């Protein structure tokens, strides 16, 4: 089994799916030449420019055309170059893709995948750093995946492409080349909506997703080494629909819940997790359901000094674990 970066895993998933099913095609800005992150590298050579299609610079039309193509029998994978530039397509995603099936009483469906790099930590400033999952997790009819690991990226992207519903596939851009991981060459899928317990523990449940999974795992190791607190780390992987049962079961076991996410704290997806734990596992808790996230400033300032001040990191997470453990 080869060790791969996440961006290689994404590329592999696209390539596999395009080989497997000729209805699959990718479209977006610069995808023909391989894309600015190289996630579509080589696809045009193998599949031609019709199936790896450079589009005009127009996000609403990219998603809108993908919706139309899906209505007419294809399985489009639209790439939005940066999540920060998806906002012009919000209407197409929310009004059209998410609602088509419901509004037509199940008569029409919209099997599109919208892939986009998101997230901070790469000195991207306020327009190359945003977390957008909460906007879309709020919308019924959409599935929303956040990946930050090569193995998960490949298995979940395949599931997204094969899913008969619109799927938002958010790839943490800092994780694209941050580390390598064993990724099977053969076909495998990871079910949408199923969390992964990436570290077992008994004293606390830490719920997270995206790049914060890696940071949380680091923090959990450090704290356990220092004072023996054993933290269970759950990577949601899919934020909509999310794996409530996995989280609740763990909280019932540990009695404590720490939720870690990179997005702004207010109205971020972690707020939904916190509310659910408070409502459905109240009698098992022996400490406050706690969130660690970015404060409410536009994500993210450009200067590394400012960026580090704002974003959660392993040290901040470790502090949060210690505080909650002291309850």
């Amino acid at each position, binding site marked *: 089994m080869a060790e791969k970066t996440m961006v290689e895993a994404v590329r592999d998933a696209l390539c596999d799916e395009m080989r497997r099913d000729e209805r699959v095609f990718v479209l977006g800005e610069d995808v023909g030449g391989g894309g600015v992150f190289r996630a579509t590298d080589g696809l045009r050579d193998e599949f031609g420019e019709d199936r790896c299609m450079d589009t005009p610079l127009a996000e609403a039309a990219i998603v809108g055309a993908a919706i*139309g*193509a899906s209505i007419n029998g294809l399985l489009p994978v639209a790439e939005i170059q940066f999540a920060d530039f998806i906002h012009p397509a919000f*209407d197409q995603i929310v009004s059209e893709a998410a609602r088509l099936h419901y509004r037509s009483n199940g008569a029409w469906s919209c099997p599109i995948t919208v892939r986009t790099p998101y997230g901070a930590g790469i000195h991207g400033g306020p327009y190359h750093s945003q977390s957008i999952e909460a906007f879309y997790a709020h919308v019924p009819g959409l599935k929303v995946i956040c990946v930050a690991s090569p193995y998960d990226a490949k298995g979940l992207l395949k599931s997204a492409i094969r899913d008969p519903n619109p799927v938002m596939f958010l790839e943490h851009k800092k994780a694209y080349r941050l580390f390598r991981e064993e990724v099977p060459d053969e076909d495998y899928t990871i079910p949408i909506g199923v969390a992964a317990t990436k570290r077992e523990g008994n004293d606390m449940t830490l719920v997270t997703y995206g790049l914060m999974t890696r940071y949380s795992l680091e923090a959990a190791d450090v704290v356990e080494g220092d004072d023996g607190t054993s933290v269970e780390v759950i990577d949601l992987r899919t934020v909509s629909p999310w794996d409530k049962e996995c989280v609740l079961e763990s909280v019932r076991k540990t009695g404590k819940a720490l939720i870690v996410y990179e997005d702004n704290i207010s109205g971020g997806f972690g707020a939904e997790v916190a509310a659910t734990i408070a409502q459905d596992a109240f009698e098992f808790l022996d400490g406050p359901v706690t969130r660690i996230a970015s404060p409410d400033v536009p994500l993210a300032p450009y200067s590394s000094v400012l960026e580090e001040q704002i974003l959660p990191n392993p040290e901040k997470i470790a502090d949060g674990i210690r505080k909650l453990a002291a309850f």
Partner: protein
Amino acid sequence: MVSVSDVPGAQGLSKDQLRELYYKMFLARSVGERERMLNRMGKGPFAVTGEGHEATQVGTAFAMTPGKDWALTYYRDIGVALTLGMTPRDLLLAHLGRAESIESGGRNMPSHFSSVDLRIVSGSAPVATQVPHAVGIALASKLRGLDEVAVAYFGDGAASVGVVHESMNLAGVHRLAVIFVCENNQYAISVPASKQAAITDLSIRAQGYGFPGVTVDGNDVLAVYSAAKEAVERARNGDGPTFIEAKTYRLVPHTSDDDDRRYRSREEVEEWEKKGPLIRFRTWLEENDVASASEIDEIEAKAMAEIDAATEYAEAAPTPDPATAMRHVFVEEE
């Protein structure tokens, strides 16, 4: 602009087809009137109809092949829906939000036309969002080697929305089989055409996207049909998109919630009533001996009988089961 008097003939249509055109136009007019009446009677909570747009809608849809070509309609397109094969019953079931409505089973507002079999794609309410779908559908047709045509309908207000321009540009780049039909009724609710655009003929915009644009008299069904037929042929032959701007006039308020006396004079509306598409075509049919006055009366009586029966049926049809409200958020896997 081309008008009836300039049209040499019947655009290759047979007498039966010409009568069918009139039938669909009259049906569209009368379904609209019936919906507004049911609304005033307190039976349907909302009505949005297209009285005045019949020539534009029926004339363009008549050039399409139903079930093969795709229609991306907007809320005013009763005439398009009926011409392609939806029935007064379908529309009135939707108007009353009944369970059996093929548009949406009571989920969408009325006049949000939909039929999978007829390839009338379910629409939404934000204006112009359907336009890129036509482009994507045509893109898929091209990739799949199919000679289908996708027709996107929208108003003059919607023509100002950014995604229309994005869509035309993309369609132009790939020479896709899309027809953009702008039903220019000269108002977007109360905003007149002069406040919507600094140009008179919106069709000149097509130049900027590299395909032909034409402005036609949208109250002249044969002129509209002729332009649409040519556009369909061009699209089917792989020669790319066309922008058809049909100049027309909405003879009724924007919706059942609008009072158009606030923004336009009765004299103006009356002027346009005289130039209305039904009167004009009826006169043309009589003058050219396609149908006599009494034959036209028969056509109209047949349409009214169909609408009466549809009304009765729809009123008696059951409302949706509340327990189904949660269904179809996602595709239900077998």
